[in-house]
């Protein structure tokens, strides 16, 4: 079935089953492989993207659900908050293996968009759905605090 979706500001006409997970479309159809497949059941957060500015696990979102909405992936996230997060991530050298980090960053940007100066508790509650096998959680928290300061 032919569908038209907007990803990172670009419109894409695709021919897929509308029940296909958005994650498959991003990675296999549009070749936007920055968004990762981790668990496939919304338990790890590696596939986090933004839909109309809100975080969404792309593995449990049928592509039909994003028609007429704006999808943003790690390749397209931008603006002062995203810039501050990127700078903090590099400065603190947050990633270890890096596999989960695009999801971590998308969740961090979503949090900082909602709360400009999050507390540790705010961070824990917003980031608890993004797991990291390398256990970079302490650096992630530091980076979010640093980005919050830089974004102001």
């Amino acid at each position, binding site marked *: 079935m032919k569908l038209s979706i907007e990803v990172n500001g670009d419109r894409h006409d695709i021919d897929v089953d509308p*029940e296909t997970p958005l994650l498959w479309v991003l990675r296999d159809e549009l070749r936007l492989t920055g968004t990762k497949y981790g668990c496939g*059941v919304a338990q790890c957060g590696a596939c986090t993207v933004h839909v109309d500015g809100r975080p969404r696990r792309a593995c449990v979102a049928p592509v039909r*659900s994003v028609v007429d909405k704006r999808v943003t992936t790690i390749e397209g996230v931008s603006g002062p908050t995203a810039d501050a997060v990127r700078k903090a991530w590099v400065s603190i050298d947050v990633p270890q293996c890096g596999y989960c980090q695009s999801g971590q960053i998308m969740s961090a940007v*979503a*949090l900082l968009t909602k709360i400009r100066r999050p507390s540790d508790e705010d961070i824990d509650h*917003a980031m608890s759905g993004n*797991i990291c096998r390398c256990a970079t959680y302490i650096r992630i928290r530091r980076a979010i605090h640093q980005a919050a300061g830089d974004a102001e």
Partner: protein
Amino acid sequence: MKSFSRNLWAATSLCVAIGLGCVVSCQRSRPPTSEPTWLPADRGLRSVADFAVISDDDERSRALFLEVAKVLQHDRCVNCHPAGERPLQRSGEPHQPLVVRGEDGFGAPGLGCDTCHGESSYLNMPGSPHWHLAPLEMAWEGKSARAICQQIQDPQRNGGKSPAELAQHMTHDELVAYGWAPPEQLEPAPGNQRLLGQLFQAWLDSGAVCPE
């Protein structure tokens, strides 16, 4: 928008209620007979017609609520009526990952319910429009049928709905409907939504007496 949605939940939650004044003044209907309009029993939920053999009004009313409570106390409903700050899942275990109700019942900023729960169930993921937790005052977790019956008749905990609005809610609300449309790995609530609506209306009509 969130405030509206919260109010909508309060107004349309499964926490159905009637005003106490109405309990006193409502005329009781005659015991139900085998009217052809009663829906048949379905998957563990009895038909209203099955209660016609109970001639005592109070006894029949109590029995009807206990039947309604089979749905209200089911995991599909109780999991999002938790007594604490976290929802439950599956057969009542803590939700994984850790999520919290947040200020409005729609989750924490940055990790709202809609991060994972879409407008309908999809693959393993439960879903329904406006997916969120019931307010704390509407918690059902760990409560008896009697306690829930009393709770939903308390204007402070029922969203202020009229009996007609409550019956409408039971029969048509989309979030209530989810109880019978979970993903494959989860057990649906007993019966079906229309049958629940009939049982609830029959309970109202019989005087809305709470079980012991």
